[in-house]
């Protein structure tokens, strides 16, 4: 009880709510509530509702095809398919990470009043975008059908790719959400950075069109391999190269761990800054 003691405070609750037996189920249910809220928010008051999630990538695909098929069409067969696969992967990452970034600050009123595990907010943002992503597989299937693309057993790699992109996105979201609590303008920096990132990732162009030097730089873009793991089995109908899969898994795992570590380290202080 000495006031000078620097020992940190202790909070004990028995039975604990967010740890111990049964906690997993409570986490899962909270995630369920938050994800379904995010999805409902998105579709409320829109006439076409869920259709937007399917139409949006189709529109962007058409635009990019019209603009770029003269340039890349000759070297990339089935260019619209190439584009839409890349776009879906990109949207999952960019939407998940931007919404995840804002999620903690946006939930500020809640975090100040309810004892709730804060990591659930970025997790729910990424989760909601995973659900939307699943819906956007419908237009992808449509394009594959129209272009008569053969579906091979390599398609089993698709969930692996999605999982790795989701994991990477979660890592980024956790790290940026933490930063955003302390510096509110992180959001704007990130949005600007995302634009550059989009052009620096082979979404609408194949990596082969780049100069060897540019390609060497691009190897360092973690999204390149992540998109590749998702795209190759759908676009080429073959399994992604083992080296690419290994790199993608390593990057996604490392980013998720790093994000989690940063978030955990600072989350106790969030309440003072939100």
């Amino acid at each position, binding site marked *: *009880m000495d006031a000078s003691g620097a020992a940190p405070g202790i*909070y004990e609750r028995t039975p604990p709510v*967010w740890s111990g037996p049964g906690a997993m189920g409570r986490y899962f249910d909270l995630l369920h*509530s938050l994800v379904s*809220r995010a999805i*409902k928010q998105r579709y409320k008051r829109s006439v076409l509702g869920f259709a937007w999630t399917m139409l949006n990538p189709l529109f962007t695909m058409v635009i990019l095809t019209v603009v770029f098929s003269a340039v890349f069409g000759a070297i990339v067969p089935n260019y619209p398919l190439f584009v839409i696969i890349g776009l879906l992967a990109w949207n999952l990452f960019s939407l998940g990470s931007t919404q995840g970034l804002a999620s903690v600050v946006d939930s500020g009123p*809640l975090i100040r009043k309810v004892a709730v595990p804060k990591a659930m907010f970025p997790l729910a943002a990424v989760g909601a975008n995973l659900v939307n992503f699943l819906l956007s597989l419908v237009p992808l299937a449509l394009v594959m059908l129209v272009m008569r693309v053969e579906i091979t057993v390599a398609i089993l790699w698709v969930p692996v790719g999605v999982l790795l992109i989701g994991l990477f996105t979660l890592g980024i979201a956790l790290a940026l959400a933490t930063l955003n609590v302390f510096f509110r303008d992180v959001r704007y920096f990130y949005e600007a950075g995302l634009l550059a990132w989009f052009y620096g990732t082979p979404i609408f162009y194949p990596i082969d069109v780049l100069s060897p030097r540019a390609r060497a730089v691009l190897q360092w873009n973690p999204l390149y391999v992540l998109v590749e793991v998702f795209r190759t089995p759908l676009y080429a109908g073959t399994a992604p190269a083992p080296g690419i899969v290994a790199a993608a898994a390593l990057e996604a795992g490392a980013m998720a761990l790093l994000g989690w570590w940063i978030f955990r380290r600072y989350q106790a202080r969030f309440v003072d800054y939100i």
Partner: protein
Amino acid sequence: MRYDLQQERVISVREYAIRRLRGERFPTQTLWPLRGVSFDVRAGESFGIVGRNGAGKSTLLKVIAGIVPPTRGRVRVHGHLSPLLELGAGFDHELTGRENIQLYGTLLGLRRKHLRDRVAAIADFAELTPFIDVPLKNYSSGMVARLAFAIATDSDPDILIVDEVLSVGDAPFQRKCEERLARFRARGVTVLLVTHDLHLLTETCSRAVLLEAGASCIVGAAEEIAARYAERTGG
């Protein structure tokens, strides 16, 4: 079940400049909204917390509820705790009453299946059965408060933290809330009551703590604390 709130708590308010990204830091100012506060609350007891505005009552409740971690010292909570702090903090006004029951309940750590089974009872207590599938934005503020109270008290708590929320809704509903709280007390639920109403304090609580801005605290029988508080506020 036993409370042990010992020692201290600090919130350091750090003012960062707009130029914070350059790494410039403003001098740190340290505040101790709660310091040297220590008391036990016995199981089944109704315990009052009084103090003037800014005495640290809300901070104390947040520490007990586990919303802010104590900087120093120790907080021990035994049993299921249901905080009635700022009712409806977790509500989303675009969602319906039913959807909000699920959302708010899971935020408190309740299971979705359990909540699904309880929707009817919660809506009934809140007198909102016909409106349960209407978005909250179309509710009056009294309806929202009733729903929040109904959800927060529906779970079977061992400890209830009440932060002057009894002024919810109209007179008949207030009576219903008081009845429910009285039933909880009769059943042996520990109640922590924050109030400025000294009459309510002496009526419901056996003991109380008087908090004084960031410094000492006095624990004693409710009547004694009420008298001290009245003295201090010039009442």
